[in-house]
């Protein structure tokens, strides 16, 4: 089934009912969790307040402590129910989607792409000291082999007494074997400078900012506003980012409404999509009976196949 054309049929026939059942559990777990969290905070606040005035044990205090322990246990239980709800969503709903879209796939909730794959992409140059992720999916889609997961790459530092946390990358990264045709590195990143400061100033600032690879200027002004191209070989980079590829990537940006970066380096095609939320988790604050999350996953796979097909033509 072509999911892009027949998504509604797929959703109604195979997914919706399961989502409705799951939603009941999920909403219940969520409500309990938030209620008990709130009560716990109040009790803890009251307890700390009383304790600070001096230790006095009275029957009321004993009831207070018992209630606090009870609420803690119930909150833990609610949290566990919520985690079970998340797992059921991934096992029952996402598995159906992957089964429909992918060939020979495997889905591991706790695994993620390796640091080696991340570094090989050359998409991010920031130093980091925390590397984690989840939800590794590997398989094939329309003949294209890939590995994909959520990643969280962070640099934690300490400045006197203050802790700083710099997020280098948080989102989805997809890697796929690259073509042997291309021996050098080409990186296409979303261009923040030209987008925020305009054409002239953006290009000026781009000349003075430090780049890991030499900047490659291409023909399309629209593409230049959206992306920054860097390459270790000016000719090969232009061979990859042809006018046709520039148009194609712009179409993908408009269609997907997602910002993404891609690279061809170290025999690997890498695509990175920054996201603010945990991509494969069900919605936390609303009903999970919705199509947005599933459609976004289909768009991401479509992006991969589209870029791969375009690169094959080069």
């Amino acid at each position: 089934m072509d999911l892009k054309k027949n998504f509604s049929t797929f959703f109604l026939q195979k997914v919706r009912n399961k989502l409705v059942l799951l939603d009941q559990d999920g909403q219940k777990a969520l409500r309990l969790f938030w209620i008990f969290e709130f009560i716990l905070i109040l009790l803890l606040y009251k307890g700390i307040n009383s304790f600070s005035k001096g230790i006095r044990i009275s029957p009321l205090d004993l009831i207070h402590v018992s209630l606090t322990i009870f609420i803690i246990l119930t909150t833990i239980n609610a949290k566990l129910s919520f985690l079970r709800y998340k797992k059921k969503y991934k096992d029952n709903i996402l598995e159906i989607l992957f089964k429909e879209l992918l060939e020979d796939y495997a889905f591991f909730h706790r695994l993620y792409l390796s640091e080696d794959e991340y570094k090989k992409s050359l998409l991010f140059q920031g130093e980091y000291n925390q590397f984690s992720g989840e939800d590794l999916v590997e398989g094939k889609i329309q003949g294209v082999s890939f590995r994909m997961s959520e990643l969280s790459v962070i640099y934690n530092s300490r400045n006197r007494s203050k802790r700083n946390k710099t997020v280098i990358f948080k989102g989805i990264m997809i890697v796929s074997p690259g073509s042997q045709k291309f021996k050098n590195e080409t990186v296409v990143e979303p261009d923040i400078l030209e987008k925020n400061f305009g054409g002239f100033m953006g290009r000026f600032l781009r000349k003075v900012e430090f780049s890991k690879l030499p900047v490659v200027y291409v023909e399309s002004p629209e593409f230049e506003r959206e992306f920054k191209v860097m390459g270790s070989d000016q000719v090969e980079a232009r061979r990859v980012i042809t006018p046709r590829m520039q148009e194609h990537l712009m179409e993908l940006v408009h269609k997907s409404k997602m910002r993404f970066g891609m690279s061809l380096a170290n025999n690997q095609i890498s695509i990175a999509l920054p996201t603010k939320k945990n991509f494969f988790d069900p919605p936390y604050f609303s009903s999970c009976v919705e199509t947005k999350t599933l459609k976004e996953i289909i768009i991401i796979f479509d992006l991969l196949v589209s870029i791969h097909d375009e690169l094959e033509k080069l």
Partner: protein
Amino acid sequence: MNVALIAIGVGLIFFIVTYNSLVHKKNQIENAEGSLDAVLKQRFDLIPQLIEVAKQYMTHEEVLLSKIIELRSRATKSHDLAEKDGLDKQMQKELKGLMVNVENYPQLLSNNNFTQLQEAMTDLEKNISASRRFYNTAVVEFNTAIEMFPGFMLRGLMGLAKKERFSVGEDEKIIPNTRELFKK
């Protein structure tokens, strides 16, 4: 006195930065010329092999084959990149005609050597296209720099003149995005 010294210092820094930037852009053009020249040479070196294989089967295409050899010979003797590029484009046109005629010689089509040479030529064509685009981008950057402030002030001093771009093929053109045009 101090103000004058500061002004001279700033002016000197300004001059050095602009001078270096123009030199960099000029070198970038030379770099692009070198890349294009190298790829064109690779193609010229491949032509005799292709013609040799084609000759064995294409007994009625001697005029076309001779024309290609002649263009190739002129191109390899030339020292001017623009002239080489122009001759290469003419040669490409003749080669396209040859490839159309190759359809009439099925034995040639199934010849492994010929197929491999054809693939190599296609690959080189893409590299030539990318090299031309690199050259044109470098020329645009350079021309813009010597026409705008402050580059135009040093133009005469450094003996710099505008350069011409190479013409592009259909596949190298950007089709204007009508959505963006409407937005403007």
